[in-house]
């Protein structure tokens, strides 16, 4: 009997020491680890970006040699996508989804532990693939770009093998995390919490999870075939052996295009909470928004070849992919209108998360416009592989994914830590990042249209001014993140006590179960299922 009581006590308190983290099956602890991991990788990927921009400050070679430069470009993308955005979004899902739907934890808590702990291993492999080039005899660095197209990726050295194994681990991790999230949403909702009552963030992650389950395995299969071509004498991608390098492009982009929605959707989910909260109005058109996301999910799976217009597909195939791609801008545009209508006649206040949300709507729409330009085949034949594409996807991904996550961080920090963040610093951070982001990437539209190719260490003298503006913007953008780090640490350490529901409008139009818990919530959220009105 006394043993039972002891057990009780033991389990209500978090275990002490490293075991709390290493053996954790608690959704909040795992969420915290995901978020910290993402923050670390943000600085790793950011350091790579700073090196890239420092090198591009002037034409010619200054800091890094061409192969190292291209390896940095490769790893910057992989670190930011797989190491930063996806883990940060998964961390928010872990923290918030069980609390939003009134579940005691994730559906499969042990698998949750494993999904997280594969990530540090994958990160070590990925960084090893960068640094292995400094060991003599390991061959050419991974100079392929994140798309790792053969035949180049078959020819480069040991770094590619490490990268492939890293992608395997990342893939397994995100497939398991997605299975967990989808299962949680389907099975663990509190009585009365129907799917159509869930906060938009849950729906966004539901579709994200399904997308990942469908496309990540294809990437894993593709890179495994690459591994076979490299070492086991197959010729999947080698024309001389009856294979076809273009097959890899199809496999990669069947993953790669849906992947951009994987990065986008969780942030759209955050906007679906932030905008109603600070407009003090229910979300405009909740149901249509769910359908738009479903439409995006379905259409997103069948438009991948717009990344390969230049490979010489038949006219019919090209036309199909062009029309499909242009169609995608319809649900994206409608989502934006729904957010604008949510703000319409609301009583808006401009806290940091809301500032980010409004800026996202403006800047992300801009990416939608350049996206439609790129979708048009004859135009894309000009733009492809220039800085115009770089500008397009940074406008899509930094507002569309990264700033959405920042909005989420500021929106939920009070809930996570129990302290309010410093609003004044938050606003300074907002203006600093937003302005320096635009300074960095806006000029790249022009250098791209003027013909500057991407992924090249050197450039023609005519592009100097645009590149210098870009580099200055990038340094300022990088620097702003030290402030971000400072704000987070300061909030974790102390500050004004946060109420259970720190935002006045937080529960408008949604059940808002997460706000019924204290800030910070207890170690076990809902030991008895909550009731939904």
């Amino acid at each position, binding site marked *: 009997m006394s043993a039972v009581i002891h*057990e*009780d006590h*033991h*389990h*209500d308190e978090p275990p002490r020491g490293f075991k709390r983290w290493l053996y954790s099956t608690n959704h909040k602890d795992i969420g915290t680890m995901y978020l910290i991991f993402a923050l670390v990788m943000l600085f790793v990927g950011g350091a790579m970006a700073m090196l890239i921009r420092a090198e591009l400050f002037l034409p010619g070679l200054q800091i890094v040699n061409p192969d190292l430069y291209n390896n940095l470009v490769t790893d910057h993308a992989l670190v930011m996508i797989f190491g930063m955005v996806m883990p940060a979004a998964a961390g928010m899902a872990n923290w918030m989804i069980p609390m939003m739907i009134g579940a*005691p934890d994730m*559906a*499969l808590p042990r*698998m949750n532990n494993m999904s997280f702990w594969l990530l540090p291993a994958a990160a070590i492999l990925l960084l090893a693939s960068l640094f292995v080039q400094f060991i003599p005899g390991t061959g050419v660095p991974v100079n392929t770009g994140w798309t790792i197209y053969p035949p180049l990726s078959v020819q480069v050295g040991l770094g590619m093998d490490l990268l492939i194994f890293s992608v395997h681990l990342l893939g397994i991790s995100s*497939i398991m995390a*997605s*299975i*967990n999230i*989808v*299962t949680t949403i*389907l*099975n*663990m909702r509190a009585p009365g919490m129907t799917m159509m009552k869930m906060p938009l963030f849950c729906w966004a992650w539901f579709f994200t999870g399904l997308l990942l*389950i*469908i*496309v*990540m*395995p*294809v990437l*894993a*299969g*593709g890179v495994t*075939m690459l591994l076979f071509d490299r070492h086991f*004498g*197959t*010729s*999947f991608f080698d024309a001389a*052996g*009856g*294979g076809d390098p273009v*097959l890899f492009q199809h*496999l990669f982009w069947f993953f790669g295009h849906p992947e951009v929605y994987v990065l986008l959707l969780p942030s759209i989910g955050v906007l679906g909470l932030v905008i109603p909260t600070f407009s003090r109005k229910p979300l405009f058109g909740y149901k249509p928004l769910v359908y738009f996301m479903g439409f995006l999910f379905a259409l997103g799976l069948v438009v991948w070849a717009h990344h390969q217009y230049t490979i010489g597909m038949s006219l019919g195939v090209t036309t199909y992919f062009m029309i499909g791609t242009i169609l995608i801008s319809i649900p994206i545009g409608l989502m934006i209108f729904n957010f604008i209508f949510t703000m319409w006649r609301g009583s808006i206040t401009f806290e940091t998360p809301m500032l980010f949300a409004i800026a996202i709507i403006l800047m992300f729409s801009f990416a939608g416009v350049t996206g439609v330009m790129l979708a048009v085949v004859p135009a894309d034949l000009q733009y492809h592989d220039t800085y115009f594409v770089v500008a397009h996807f940074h406008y899509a991904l930094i507002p569309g994914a990264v700033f959405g996550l920042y909005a989420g961080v500021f929106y939920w920090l009070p809930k996570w830590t129990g302290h309010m963040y410093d609003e004044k610093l938050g606003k300074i951070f907002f203006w600093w990042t937003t302005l320096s982001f635009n300074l960095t990437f806006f000029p790249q539209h022009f250098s791209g249209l003027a013909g500057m190719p991407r992924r090249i260490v050197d450039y023609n003298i005519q592009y100097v001014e645009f590149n210098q503006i870009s580099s200055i913007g990038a340094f300022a953008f990088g620097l702003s993140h030290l402030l971000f780090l400072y704000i987070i640490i300061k909030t974790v350490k102390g500050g004004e006590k946060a109420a259970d529901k720190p935002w006045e409008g937080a529960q408008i139009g949604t059940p808002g179960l997460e706000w019924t818990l204290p800030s910070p919530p207890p170690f*076990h959220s809902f*030991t*008895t*299922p909550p009731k939904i009105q």
Partner: protein
Amino acid sequence: MNENTETQIEKKDMRKANIMIALILGLIAFSVAIMPFFYLRDQVM
């Protein structure tokens, strides 16, 4: 085990269903993963 009986019942109820759904989703993932390999038959090994 550690929480009160109400949750315990609910947890027990869901465990099987959770694993079932996870297995179905895992099967989907596995089948897409092996699809590209069917190109193997076209290969000169």
